[in-house]
């Protein structure tokens, strides 16, 4: 191994976007036939570095060596020619093209399509046999599940004869079983001598699959270590730059009376698709109910109904009193008056107005509060700003500038602004969706602590998250949603990711076909409005 040239070597790569130094003097060596992990928080510069390698951006300084040869990569064409393939976090597929058309796009053999399509069909079959990458070549991308779409992306790279495969946050959209399947494919690719770079923020994936790992923080590479010689704890510290608590530290719940009671809830969206199917559950004071599920299985609609901006049939009781689900009192304002606070899933669309400043966003929804009024006609903006400064201090929002536009805060700090607004109203029930999506590890720790503290004050909390780890570590009870239905409830201490993963794919008993096939079939079906089987 030692006398081989590294598959990739970067020397002194720097890149700035205006005043922001996204990459600072980064050097890295990746040996052929290995899996190299790159881990770091959001905005640490991982994706920028890989985009430079794939020719999306031009580095301000530094050199790239591929297989020992100094290579210039001015565009994606050059990267592909150098044998680099990239699977982006957001797939770059044409939705209404077939798998085959997507694979040949940009790599056609001649001006006419037919010969290319025929060759690709044969080639894909060979690749499927070689690496276990089975896909339906004539299916439209929009008709297949995300796991399959990801496989198309990998096939695209292999069809272009890639020896180096870069995967950017590949498991963000996958169920645990699909992720396992992906890692098995990566194993086979590695065994065939391919070099794989895995970008992720999930410590466990790094520990399970990589040979070496590089840690990035604020545009710099802080360390490169052998995976076998490090620990999650050490990697987390290298990422954040200080000690972090990976486990949520919480005492057993002391549940009191039921705050939220949902009975036979049904939601049909404006396209006529039945999104939530006869769902019933309770959340008691002083407990966190976690709702797990793959995105798009009715969790969002459930939160929307409770938050007051989606209509539904059925019954919802809060503190024993019924909520209006369709009439004049089914809006956010009325919900807040009933003691419901809501941290929406998509904070940039539903939680904040991105162009407005932090203090304006702090008042939203609560702008009728007595303390914010100067007279019956005018608001007291100074009072709101003062209030915002205090909240920013308590929630450690950085920078603590109430006049800064919300879009200029990092994801974690945006979330803290929303949390501060909602939690500080002392609600009886907190609805919280994807609390740490796009939030860095340091802020995750803080946000989790706030949620647990609220529970310990005797509040009821309904947590919706697609991150199973988060659900398992925060919740006192876990319910799993699939295709609009609750598939079952479990106690975190008595279940594991594998069991929940199967429930998330709607599998309650062992099917008579390979489990991954069953999962894919079910997930591709969910949310289409068609009945399963």
């Amino acid at each position, binding site marked *: 191994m030692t006398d081989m040239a590294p598959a990739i070597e970067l020397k002194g790569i720097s890149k700035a*976007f205006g005043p922001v130094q996204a990459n600072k003097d980064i050097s890295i060596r990746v040996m052929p036939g290995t899996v190299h992990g790159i881990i770091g928080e959001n905005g640490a510069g991982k*994706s*920028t570095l890989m*985009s430079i390698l*794939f020719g*999306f*951006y031009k580095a301000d300084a530094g050199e790239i060596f591929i297989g020992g040869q100094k290579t210039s990569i001015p*565009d*994606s*064409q*050059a*990267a*592909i020619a150098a044998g680099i393939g*990239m699977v*982006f976090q*957001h797939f*770059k*597929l*044409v*939705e*209404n*093209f077939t798998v085959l*058309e*997507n694979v*040949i*796009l*940009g*790599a*056609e053999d*001649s*001006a*006419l*399509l*037919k010969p*290319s399509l025929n060759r690709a069909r044969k080639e894909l079959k060979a690749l499927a046999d070689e690496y276990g990458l089975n896909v339906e070549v004539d299916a439209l991308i929009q008709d297949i599940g995300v796991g399959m779409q990801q496989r198309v992306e990998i096939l*695209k790279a292999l069809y272009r004869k890639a020896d180096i495969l870069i995967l950017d946050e590949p498991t963000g959209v996958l169920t645990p079983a699909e992720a396992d399947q992906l890692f098995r494919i990566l194993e086979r690719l590695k065994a065939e001598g391919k070099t794989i770079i895995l970008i992720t923020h999930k410590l466990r994936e790094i520990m399970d699959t990589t040979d070496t790992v590089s840690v990035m923080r604020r545009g710099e590479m802080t360390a490169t270590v052998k995976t076998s010689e490090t620990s999650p704890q050490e990697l987390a510290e290298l990422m954040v730059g200080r000690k972090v608590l990976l486990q949520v530290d919480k005492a057993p719940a002391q549940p009191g009376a039921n705050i939220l009671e949902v009975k036979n809830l049904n939601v049909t969206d404006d396209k006529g698709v039945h999104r939530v199917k006869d769902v019933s559950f309770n959340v008691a004071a002083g407990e966190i109910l976690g709702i797990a599920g793959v995105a798009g299985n009715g969790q969002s609609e459930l939160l929307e109904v409770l938050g007051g901006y989606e209509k539904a049939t059925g019954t919802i009781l809060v503190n024993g009193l019924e909520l209006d689900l369709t009439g004049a009192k089914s809006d956010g304002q009325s919900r807040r008056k009933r003691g419901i606070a809501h941290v929406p899933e998509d904070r940039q669309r539903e939680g904040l107005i991105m162009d407005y400043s932090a203090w304006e966003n702090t008042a939203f929804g609560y702008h009728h509060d007595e303390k914010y009024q100067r007279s019956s006609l005018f608001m007291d903006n100074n009072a709101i700003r003062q209030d915002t400064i205090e909240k920013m201090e308590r929630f450690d929002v950085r920078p603590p500038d109430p006049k800064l536009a919300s879009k200029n805060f990092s994801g974690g700090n945006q979330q803290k602004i929303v949390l501060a607004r909602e939690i500080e109203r002392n609600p009886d029930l907190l609805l919280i969706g994807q609390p740490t999506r796009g939030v860095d590890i340091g802020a995750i720790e803080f946000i989790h602590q706030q949620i647990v503290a609220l529970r310990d004050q005797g509040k009821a909390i309904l947590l919706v998250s697609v991150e199973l780890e988060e659900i398992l570590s925060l919740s006192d009870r876990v319910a799993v949603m699939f295709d609009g239905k609750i598939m079952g409830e479990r106690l975190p201490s008595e279940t594991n990711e594998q069991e929940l993963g199967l429930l998330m794919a709607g599998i309650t008993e062992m099917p008579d076909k390979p489990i991954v096939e069953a999962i894919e079939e079910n997930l591709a079906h969910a949310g289409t409005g068609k009945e399963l089987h």
Partner: protein
Amino acid sequence: MDLLTLLQILDSTMRLATPLLLACLAGLFSERAGIFDIGLEGKMLAAAFLSAAVAYTSGSVWIGLLAGIAASLVLSGIHGLASITFRGNQLISGVAINFLAAGLTVVIAQSWFAQGGRTPQLSGAARFNPITLPFADSLRDVPVLGPIYYELISGHTILVYVALLCVPATWWILYRTRFGLRLRAVGENPAAVDTAGVSVVGLRFAAVGICGVLCGIAGAYLATALQAGFVKDMSAGRGYIALAALIFAKWRPWYALYATLLFGFLQALALRPDLIEAVLSFKVNGQLLDVLPYILTVIILAGFVGKAIPPRAGGEPYVKER
């Protein structure tokens, strides 16, 4: 109504549908590549003027046609520059082109020919004249088929046949060639094209260029074939009707033919109020007939065509995401 009258109406349907069809296919290329083009109208108008002016001055309609195409291409270039290179708003750029063409054509025509903003009448080789297809005269007396061949199929200007041939050609390019695959992809998801190592900007300029050529032919047809010279605002909203037809056609070439034939038919009907009176046995207001194509446009645009899904990346300038 006898066969001959029907054939006459269908014959003028063909003639009136031709500029719509060319403009519709022009829009199809542009919009399939993700560039909305509201400036079809302006491009046709500019091409109509310059083709008539040059055809009159040079005495050759073919040089006139080339000049018309050039005028349209220049406006296409401006649209491309504004919406592809500088990532401006495609609607605003298109509207600006329409205003520019409406004003400039009349001003230049007035200072060039001093005939009240029109060009002189074209005749002879300065115009596209009807061509008689082989055997049309000898087959004329064959029952049914003879008149159909003579009246309907034969006797159009060359541009009518060119427009018709553009339909299968467009289909073939879009669905059977590498260029077509990439063109459709760039209108759906330019990021997929970019990461595949193909230039988004290059593809979109190519599409806008084809759009310019087709609009140029459409405009030249108006001034040198359908009529004999340029008059103020002679495109008369055809660019917008072509856009409506494009939506009606769901951005597909064969449907574009059917949609523009329908609009052409309505325009042909509006020219024959006597026939409508004979068929319906009461007098229909002539102006009402005139507005019929426009009413249909409004109805179509209001969404009575079922699900028409435009190219997903349409109207959006492409910016690489971080």
